[in-house]
């Protein structure tokens, strides 16, 4: 009996050891589904950094990272080193902005946030807020536009944050200021775009301004350094487009050629380079998100990267697999398109990978 007891005890101990081992071994394997989902695109890009893990609200969705643009001291893509970034995400009751950075100890800090940005009155086809990261000098900078003609809103707020290892988020513009005070006519802004400044120069902001009587003007401005004031550039160009309804939110892009897009049962994109006779680009049926320096038009609508040439002919369309377009920025003298990939990991934390590809190679994706 004693022997049987010993056998039973040994069996129980062995079973306990095996069960404990199984529990210890029963861990989630390292795996990032989002990484594989976006692999077709990221394979052709350069990973320029990663950031995380960042703890956000468990109800946060639509999370994206907008890292600071490379400063003028960065002259090659291998020198780009992402250590921080603005985090934009949806959370009840609106959108939120925060700034995450890696401190001197290598730990990720999540600075104070700008929240909530109410989504009341938002038109589902347009972003109610547009987040434009601007040229990095001594701080990370981002302009938050809020444009809603129906609500008579056209404001901007400049957010700045220290570069790692510091990272306090502040707002030189204070509360969102009306853009009307920054344009000479004092008219409401219905659309905006930004073109990257070359060779460390300031980014060029373009505003599409309406005067309420069917006359619009294109307005160019810049932000220099941390100056809390937009500086007008050149003389506003007056345009007249009776086909475009007034008091409508526009997607507006301007460089060598200027485009205007609005939603009316479907996206209608106009080439307004010739102010007097806008031409509709029938090949464009998606919301345009960026006009690239090479003249191509980029859409990321429906998580699909669609590229159009300047005449509106579709060049390619690829699933993005959750990859998010950040902006176009110069690295040295070469314009790059930057993307970030948000990934949720254990404990609900978020991590981000940042990728870049020369704009000139976008057509080869």
């Amino acid at each position: 009996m004693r022997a049987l007891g010993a056998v039973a005890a040994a069996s129980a101990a062995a079973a306990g050891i095996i069960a404990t081992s199984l529990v210890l071994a029963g861990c989630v394997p390292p795996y990032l589904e989002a990484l594989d989902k976006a692999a077709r695109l990221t394979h052709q890009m350069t990973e320029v950094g990663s950031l995380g893990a960042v703890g956000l609200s468990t109800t946060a969705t639509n999370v994206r990272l907008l890292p600071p643009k490379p400063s003028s001291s960065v002259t090659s893509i291998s020198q780009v080193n992402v250590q921080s970034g603005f985090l934009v995400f949806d959370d009840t009751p609106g959108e939120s902005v925060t700034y995450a950075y890696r401190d001197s100890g290598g730990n990720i800090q999540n600075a104070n946030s700008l929240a909530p940005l109410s989504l009341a009155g938002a038109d589902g086809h347009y972003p109610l807020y547009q987040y434009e990261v601007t040229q990095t000098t001594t701080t990370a900078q981002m302009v938050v536009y809020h444009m809603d003609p129906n609500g008579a809103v056209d404001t901007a707020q400049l957010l700045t944050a220290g570069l790692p290892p510091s990272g306090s988020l502040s707002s030189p513009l204070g509360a969102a200021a009306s853009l009307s005070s920054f344009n000479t006519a004092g008219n409401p802004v219905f659309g905006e775009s930004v073109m990257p400044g070359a060779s460390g120069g300031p980014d060029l902001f373009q505003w599409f301004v309406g005067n309420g009587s069917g006359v619009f003007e294109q307005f160019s401005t810049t932000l220099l350094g941390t100056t809390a004031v937009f500086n007008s550039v050149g003389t506003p160009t007056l345009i007249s487009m009776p086909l475009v309804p007034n008091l409508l939110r526009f997607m507006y892009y301007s460089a060598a050629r200027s485009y205007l897009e609005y939603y009316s049962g479907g996206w209608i994109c106009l080439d307004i380079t010739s102010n007097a006779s806008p031409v509709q680009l029938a090949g464009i049926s998606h919301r345009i998100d960026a006009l690239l320096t090479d003249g191509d038009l980029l859409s990321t609508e429906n998580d699909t990267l669609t590229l159009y040439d300047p005449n509106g002919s579709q060049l390619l369309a690829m699933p993005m697999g959750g990859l998010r377009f950040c902006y176009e920025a110069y690295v040295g003298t070469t314009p790059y398109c930057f993307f970030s990939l948000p990934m949720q990991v254990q404990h609900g934390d978020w991590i981000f990978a940042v990728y870049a590809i020369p704009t000139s190679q976008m057509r080869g994706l």
Partner: protein
Amino acid sequence: MRNLRSILAAPVLLVLLPFLAQGQDRSPAPASDAAGSAAQPQLASTQSPPAPDKAPRRLLFVMEGGFVGGPSSDQLVILKRSFLTALADRDDAPEPVDFGSKPFPGSLADRNKTARDAGADCWVLVRVSGLGSPTISVLSYDLLYNQIVLDFSAHRSEGFSMVDISRERWDDVILPLLKKYPPLVARAYNRGPPAPATLTIRAVPGTVVTGLSPRPLTVGPGGTVDVDLPSPAAYSLRATASGYIPTQAGLYLNGQAELPLAQERSPWLKLDGSFLDGFFPGVAATFALPALPLFARVGFTTFRAGIAVNGGDNLAISLPLTQFTLLLGIYLSPEDRPTRWYVGTGPLLRVSFPSGGPFTIDQLIPFGVQAVGGVELSLVGKLKTFIEYTPGWYYTPLPDLFALSFGNNGGSTFPYLNLPPAGAVDLIELRIGLRYAL
């Protein structure tokens, strides 16, 4: 009346005399029977000596009533007597040793010992259930070859006729017994002190037999090998042959001239069903390499459904990830052992089926190398269970994201040991499962 070789002990004889076939000649057992002993049960023997060149087998005979609807004790005595009489009427029949009416032991080992103590070299248990349409169950064991030779049931549509029981021939039981227990060759049979006898072993050519002689015996191309051994004596041997499961056999050598070895081919394919890290299912096929204790295994583990303790609030985990493995290994233990150890190593490939994305090789950890140390434990038949320790080295081209993928875990990547830029090692991986040999 020919070859009536049975002898009945006096008490049984008194009881059974009225039922004996008329005219049968009976005589007591020879007192000089070498296998006999003081404890020996009643012997049934023949008056006629066996042919000079043959020696009959000695069969311990046990008859029992069935558990349900069996004969009464008186009827059982009659049936037993009838059986012994019928057996005695056959040429070359084994020499019966009647066990009487004592309870026959339940275990095989005890039964064998009882038979040996009774001077028998084999035993048969005949169990009769029902008399109207009886079922006769027969179980017989050959002590010389250490194996069960008969295990069957015979059903009769007509019952025993007790009035005319002397005409019962018991062909359905006796004929198989005669076939299984022919007389031994006299020159190899010895009831006296041990003397050399030649044993011919029949086996697959090339079989190596150990345990019978100082040097291993090798079965020749003809499939036999001879060995001179003292007889009678008990032996155990082990036979190994390339491509066959090793055979272990016990042998009580006492007259048999040949020993055929039952050799079973090694399975070339085994199928696994298992759980990795406790709770992620997988399957594998193991291909054995004949002539060598080597094996190759291909398999996969899906992480589509499983349970993990570090997945946050939910223990249930579903990842569109599959891990394919190729393993080359070697068995450290012989195939016939109930516990068989093995080791191996091989590459693994991780493939991903992300929702809405293309099938792709995993970006975070595309491949790795796995080591395996495992043990198989016999369960039943060809089914075994196994447990494997499967530590792995994982290559990652994205060491920063690999570390970040563990989230805010205080920098810990447990259970992985991060070794950037080479990859990572997971030292706590286990696989348990079932393995079936085809």
